[in-house]
């Protein structure tokens, strides 16, 4: 029997919306149109219920007690670790470190790898479209160690210049850390190629997957990277929980990040020995409820299907891009060939903050500002953009609302 290859079945978006209680409210007298998903997504009942269930039935500290609740909490916590391993297709669940979010994951690597391995003259490469959280930790570690930060430039349309990147790679390059999907431009970077080139030069690779895991299937073994970071709250999960995945050998080479409980094996006042992976990087009582609910989010996304989510979001981006370009005062920012679910734009004679306020008066939530990517704004010669970013529950009707809201901006500001 053969199974025919076909496009994924379309989503029942109405049914999906029923699973998100927050969407069913009015904002400033209009139905909420939530288009700030790149900042954080809303949460389905499956995630909200899992949080409640955790606190109402099994809350206890993990990896400590011999009592029943502690065992149940530990099992739930470690089951989530396995769920993350499976979601990323990592080789081993000990490679999954729970952190607060992508920023903490990058700080952990910058600190753990950078401080113990970097020497004056060594180089770290990042790209022109990094979020501040993939710039500042490296600047800090460079300042401490005397290493240098190099930046892959990009084109006006928001694509990285790989030939320039090739020139930046030298025997001095120790680590390359780049964003998989840009939060301000939507560019999907060619991370497989970037990774292969770095490895050829003998450098490690870290990928910032904060805007990737909710839109694209991620297989860390297939990508070939050494570290991968993402945040739960952009993936329909709770805030305050995220993941650092690292290849076992790469993690084992790193110094511990924070000291405290859980990360130790033995402590005396003279000497402390550290625990094994993953616990040596998880000092203190973790966000157990967040971890447990993150598993619910991963289950939910997998049940809906990333391929169907991606197809739906691609349709919305295409529809929004086309509809907005009929307004001749709108200029789209970020026109890379490979893009994910972000539409960034500026308008003639309307500052993004005015656009944001006027859209809010129509119940439409978009992000305005530099999106924590000030170097991107400087590179493109703009102060800020308005950004609509889509998720599984958004509809074409909501794009229509956005477009009429944008038309209203011109009306109000004259």
């Amino acid at each position, binding site marked *: 029997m053969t199974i025919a290859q076909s496009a994924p079945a379309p989503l029942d978006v109405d049914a999906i919306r029923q699973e998100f209680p927050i969407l069913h409210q009015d904002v*400033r007298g209009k139905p909420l149109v939530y288009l700030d998903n790149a900042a954080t997504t809303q949460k389905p009942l499956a995630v909200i219920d899992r949080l409640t269930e955790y606190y109402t039935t099994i809350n206890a500290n993990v990896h400590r007690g011999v009592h029943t609740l502690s065992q149940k909490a530990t099992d739930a916590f470690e089951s989530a670790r396995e769920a993350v391993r499976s979601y990323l297709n990592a080789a081993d669940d000990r490679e999954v470190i729970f952190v607060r979010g992508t920023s903490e994951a990058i700080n952990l690597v910058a600190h753990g790898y950078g401080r113990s391995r970097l020497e004056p003259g060594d180089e770290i490469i990042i790209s022109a479209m990094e979020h501040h959280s993939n710039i500042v930790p490296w600047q800090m570690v460079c300042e401490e160690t005397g290493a240098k930060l190099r930046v892959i430039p990009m084109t006006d349309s928001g694509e990285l210049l790989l030939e320039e990147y090739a020139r930046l790679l030298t025997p001095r390059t120790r680590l390359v850390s780049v964003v998989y999907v840009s939060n301000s431009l939507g560019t999907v970077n060619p991370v497989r190629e970037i990774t292969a080139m770095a490895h050829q030069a003998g450098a490690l690779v870290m990928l910032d997957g904060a805007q990737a895991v909710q839109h694209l299937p991620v297989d860390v073994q297939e990508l070939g990277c050494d570290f991968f970071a993402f945040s739960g709250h952009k993936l329909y999960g709770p805030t305050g929980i995220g993941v650092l995945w690292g290849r076992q050998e790469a993690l084992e080479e790193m110094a511990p990040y924070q000291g405290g409980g859980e990360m130790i094996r033995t402590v005396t006042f003279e000497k402390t020995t550290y625990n094994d992976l993953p616990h040596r990087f998880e000092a203190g009582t973790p966000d157990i409820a967040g971890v447990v609910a993150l598993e619910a989010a991963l289950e939910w996304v997998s049940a809906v299907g990333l391929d169907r989510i991606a197809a739906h979001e691609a349709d919305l981006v295409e529809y929004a891009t086309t509809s907005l370009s009929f307004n001749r005062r709108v200029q789209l920012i970020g026109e890379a060939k490979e893009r994910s679910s972000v539409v960034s734009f500026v308008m003639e004679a*309307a*500052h*993004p*903050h*005015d656009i944001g*306020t*006027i859209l809010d*008066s129509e119940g439409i939530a978009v992000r*305005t*500002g*530099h999106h924590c990517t*000030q170097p991107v*704004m400087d590179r493109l010669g703009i*102060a*800020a953009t308005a950004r609509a970013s889509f998720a599984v529950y958004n509809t074409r009707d909501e794009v229509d609302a956005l477009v009429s809201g944008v038309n209203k901006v011109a009306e*109000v*500001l*004259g």
Partner: protein
Amino acid sequence: MDLRELYQDVILDHNRNPQNFGKPDASNRQADGHNPLCGDKITVYLTVEGDRVVDLHFDGVGCAISTASASLMTESLKGRSIGQIEELFEVFHQLVMGNADVMFDGPDLGKLVAFQGVSEYPMRVKCATLCWHTLNAAIESKQDTVTTE
């Protein structure tokens, strides 16, 4: 609240045609202001004689609220003493923070009353006050960039 209470005609007019806009030929004090959150940048140029600000200009880039606020501020303060300006800033600040009752026992804000609607949009208060903070810095001749973050 209706959007028109924020974007009143006088604000829209001053946004489209800002007064006292551009670097003047002569001034004796100036300061830069920056709101890193939204990228607004402003420079305020003053001519101060004795304790009186006889001329004010500004340039920079900003949203409608920030541009109109700077335009109306420069227009309203010309010829006033530094003491009067400090008093007016205090009243203006209370106005945009939503403490409108102070208007009745403070100095007359005149056209600046148009910014009352800003108090309903807490995220936009800094847009309206950036030019005033920068003005303060110029009066005190602090040459460092002022920031509202």
